[in-house]
């Protein structure tokens, strides 16, 4: 099963861990503030037998712990995608995402980022225009409105992100690695031996 490392970040109290648990466990739980960092595993089922494993680095949004990721960027290194969450009922939580996006991009480059507005069940304080502006500003590939309390769209950000990461990985995995591992094989159309085939360009590539 393909395994992806993702980062779940955002201001403290926006409901990151609650969203993750709503997706993972299918239930709404209220959580205390995450201490430092919590790492969880979950499986994303994309249908048609395609499943992926996510290692979710759920980072505390409390300012004192935010420094952890800032000071030890190695924790973020290798992430293939990120979910940046803010509380739709608190504009200040949206502003905090600039810093997270910068930190993540600095370490991992242009990985797919999904912007998530949580607590859609509450009176909104963030307008559609603000969201559009931030999607652009953060370079987010999508925006999803969620409510863990109502179990609204709790799986959507994870599924979307997996699809984006898979597309990106397909494009970036060095051909040599895929060839050596057998994912890609040279298709013998002329019946010649492997040694003979190595001497010439592959005639076609196909997946196992």
């Amino acid at each position: 099963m393909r395994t992806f490392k993702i980062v779940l970040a955002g201001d403290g109290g926006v409901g990151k861990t609650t969203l993750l648990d709503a997706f993972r466990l299918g239930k709404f739980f209220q959580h205390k503030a995450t201490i430092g960092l919590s790492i969880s595993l979950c499986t994303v089922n994309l249908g048609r037998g395609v499943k992926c494993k996510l290692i979710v680095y759920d980072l505390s949004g409390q300012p004192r712990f935010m420094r952890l990721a800032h000071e030890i960027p190695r924790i973020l290194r290798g992430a293939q995608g990120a979910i940046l969450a803010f509380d739709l009922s608190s504009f200040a939580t949206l502003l905090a995402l600039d810093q997270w996006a910068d930190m993540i991009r600095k370490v991992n480059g242009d990985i797919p980022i999904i912007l998530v507005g949580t607590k859609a069940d509450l009176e909104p304080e963030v307008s559609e225009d603000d969201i559009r502006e931030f999607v652009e500003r953060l370079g987010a590939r999508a925006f999803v409105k969620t409510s863990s309390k109502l179990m609204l769209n709790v799986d959507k950000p994870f599924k979307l992100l997996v699809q984006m990461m898979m597309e990106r990985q397909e494009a970036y995995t060095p051909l040599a690695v895929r060839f050596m591992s057998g994912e890609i094989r040279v298709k013998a159309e002329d019946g010649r031996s492997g040694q003979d085939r190595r001497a010439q360009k592959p005639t076609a590539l196909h997946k196992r």
Partner: protein
Amino acid sequence: MAKTEELRNLLLSIRDEVPGVRALAVISYDGFVIESFMPSSVDEDLMAAMGSSVLSIAERMGIDLGLGNFELGIVAGADGYLLLTKAGEEAILMVLVNKDVKLGVALYSVKKAAGKVAKLLEGIPVGELVASRWVEGA
């Protein structure tokens, strides 16, 4: 012999040489499994993610507290020890040993083993080993 196979064999020999080993793994600094021998009840991906985070934080604490370069991390439980050490610039060796081992001997053996892993991985992009692993398992 492919590097992944060499690494697997090296880990098997470390498992035999280091006293009281219950499980061991070589992981990347990013928190991905490169090779491991873990009990089936344990999720190796989760352990790798946690192991690299623990080491990264411990390493930074050591530097800030003036302990110098990181050498080894020990997590002591009632029933055993988890030993974490760097194996070169891009990999970490995690070894789980029984509580009844002579800790000094285990530490020495693990550090020696980490040197062997580092030598084997020298010049190999760790990311490629990780990538080939997920492709194998796809």
